Structure formats: structure tokens, C-alpha cells
């Protein structure tokens, strides 16, 4: 029995189809979701979503962050942006990385939320570069 996967960005519905398993980059570690998973709402970090069909990875998408809602039959990913790994630009990733690092360096060291936000951005940018390399 497959699980219905939906990937939505604010601008459009990117993907909607049943898959055997999906691996999503949750904030606290990669998470493989099979059918009948217990209901969860998870925060995503920058990373790659992998779709498994017939025991093989059939598609990989890079997301820069977002949320996912998991129910026994459905996985809904609300991604800030999602691009197939083949189309991820390494140059863009490196540009973002530089911007995020500059922001981190500029942030007030006492301002913890700002530091955290900058750190998240660095992490997302790094994931983007890695995704581009892997493709």
C-alpha cells in the first residue's frame, strides 16, 4: 500500500503522487516515512527529499526548509522552495552560503534567535551545495 506524497510550495503544487516510501530531511534528522506512520508534524531543514518506488530512489528534490505533515496515508510537505536535484545550481548555493555566513558574522552574538536563523540558512545553503555536488 503506497503513501500519498504531496509537495507544495507557496507558489504552486509541485508534486502529488503515491510512493512506497519517502525520506524527508526533518530538523532533527532524516526521517523515512512508510504507510501507517503515526501522525506527526515536523519541521524541515535544508536537505533532499528522496522518493522510493519499487525499492529504488526514483526522484530527489532539494528543499530549503519548510514543514511536513505526516498521517498514516498521506505526507504533505510544505516547502519554502523545492527543486529537482538535477536542477540545483551549485553557484547559487555557494552564493547563499556566503551571504548566510556574512549574516552570521554580522549578527549580534547576544541575539540568539538571529544567530539561530543565520545558522539555519548556512545549513540550508550547505545542503544545497551538497545536493548540487551529488547530482
Amino acid at each position: 500500500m503506497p503513501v500519498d506524497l504531496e509537495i507544495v510550495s507557496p507558489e504552486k503544487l509541485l508534486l502529488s503522487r503515491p510512493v512506497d516510501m519517502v525520506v524527508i530531511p526533518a530538523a532533527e534528522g532524516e526521517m523515512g516515512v512508510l504507510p501507517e506512520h503515526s501522525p506527526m508534524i515536523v519541521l524541515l531543514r535544508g536537505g533532499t527529499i528522496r522518493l522510493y518506488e519499487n525499492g529504488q530512489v526514483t526522484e530527489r528534490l532539494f528543499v530549503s526548509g519548510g514543514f511536513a505533515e505526516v498521517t498514516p496515508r498521506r505526507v504533505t510537505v510544505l516547502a519554502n522552495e523545492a527543486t529537482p536535484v538535477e536542477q540545483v545550481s551549485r553557484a547559487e548555493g555557494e552564493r547563499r552560503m556566503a551571504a548566510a555566513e556574512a549574516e552570521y558574522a554580522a549578527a549580534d552574538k547576544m541575539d540568539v534567535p538571529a544567530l539561530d536563523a543565520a545558522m539555519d540558512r548556512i545549513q540550508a545553503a550547505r545542503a544545497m551545495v551538497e545536493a548540487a555536488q551529488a547530482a
Partner: protein
Amino acid sequence: MPSLKTLRVRINSVKSTQKITSAMKMVAASKLRRAQSQAEAARPYAERMERMLASLGASAVGSPTAPKLLVGTGADKVHLLVVVTADRGLAGAFNSSVGRLARAATRRLESEGKTVKILAVGRKGRDYLKRELASRMIGDVNYVGRKSINFADAQDVATRVTAMLEAGEFDVCTLVYNRFRSVIAQVPTETQLIPTPLPEGAGAVGGGAQADGAMYEFEPDEETMLARLLPQNLAIQVYRALLENAAGFNAAQMTAMDNATRNAGDMIKRLTQNYNRARQANITKELIEIISGAEAV
């Protein structure tokens, strides 16, 4: 009776106006299609977001540490109106109806002794409100010369609003915009953004949580999730308003330009009739002159 020449000039000028209005109508119609499909594409995300928020928000709303974005500052003194209009005119009452609603809301709130601040999104709204409510304006944003709105634009507005909330510059935030009901009906609407209104009986009838008969686990904890979800939700609300505004504007412009084209057609008909009458009167007059001249000989 105006001379033949002036009539000819007027007919020609109305004809070229008609050409412009009918071209504008075509352009608005094709832009409307694009704006509508963009608005439709944005709907799934907004729906899913609402569902998540419903299951999350219900549990957090009672807690004393609930984020400000969800429950507001607790006071009800300073209201921020985010007024969304188009950047361009020639769309009938589209912009002024939002302006009127914003003005009425301002008057109402002020008569209740509250302070009003206005953030104008769109050039026409800024111009309209500046005339009377300039002292309440705290800023404006516009997208002049841009082909289409994207999510980042909405995020900028949302970030600005959030920053103001954090700085304690307002207590309640309301969005005023034209809701796109259909191509011929755009309804000026007020929607409260902060404190975030949760769907009625969230959790119980709040969609997803109940439909699947499940209680969610959260990872990380609810508070961290909410802190991330709420700003995103705010941006989505703004994005939706911007898109509806864009679609509504094009629809209103299309209707207005259709009317203008029809009016120009009527006018051309009337002017042509006058022109022909004047021409005939002239011919008759000349004939009479020739005949009476011939008789006199």
C-alpha cells in the same frame, strides 16, 4: 451647429480612444487569466497551512507563553491597517472602494479612541489615503513596473509587520483588500491577521486532525513549530491578498475598459449622425443658393 471639420476631428479622436480602450481590455483579459491561475496555484499551500495551524494553534492559544503573532499583545489600543490596492488606475471603482473601506475603518476605530496606523501596499491606495489620512501613514510598498508578484514580495511585507509587532508598535493588525469573488465582483474585505484568528473550534472541526482521526506528535515541540509556522502563515495571508488583488484589478480593468469601449462606440454613432446631418444641411443650403441664383438670372 459645430462645423464639419470639428466633428470630423472629434470622431477621429473618439475612435483612437476606443482603440486604446479595447486594446487595454484585451491586455487585462490575458493578464487576468495569468493572475487567476497564479492565485489558484497558491491555494493548496494555504489550505494545508491552515490545517496545520488549526491543529497546532488550538493547543498553544491558552498557554501564557503563546507567541505574540498568535495571540497579539493582549492590548487593543493601536491598530495597523495593511491596505492592499493596485498600482495603476483605469479600473473603475476598484482602488477607491478599498480606500473607502480603509477610511471608514479608520474613522470607526478612532471614534472608539484607538490609534490607527496605515501601511499602504500599492501606489493607488497610498495616493488615495495620503489625501486625508497622511498622518496615519507609516509606510508604503509598491510593485510598479513588475510583471507579477512572487512569494518573496509577500514575505517582505510580512517581515516588516512582524518586526513592528516585536517592537510593540501595534496591537492588532488587519488586512484590507479586494477579495476576488468573480470576474465581475470584487468585494472589499477586512481580514484580521494578528492576533491570528483560528478556524472555528480548531482541533475539533479543524480539518486534518479530525478527518484522519488522529492527534499529532510534534517534532520539535509545539512552541518551536509555531514560532516558525506563524510568520510563514502571515506571509501566506499577505501573498493571497496580493494575488487576489492582482486578479481583481485585472478583472475590474477589463470590465471598465469594456464599458469604455462600448461608450466610445455609442459616442461615435452619435457624432457620425450629427456629422451626416450637418453635411446634408450644407448640401441643401448650397443647392438652394444655386437654384435661387439661377432664378435671379
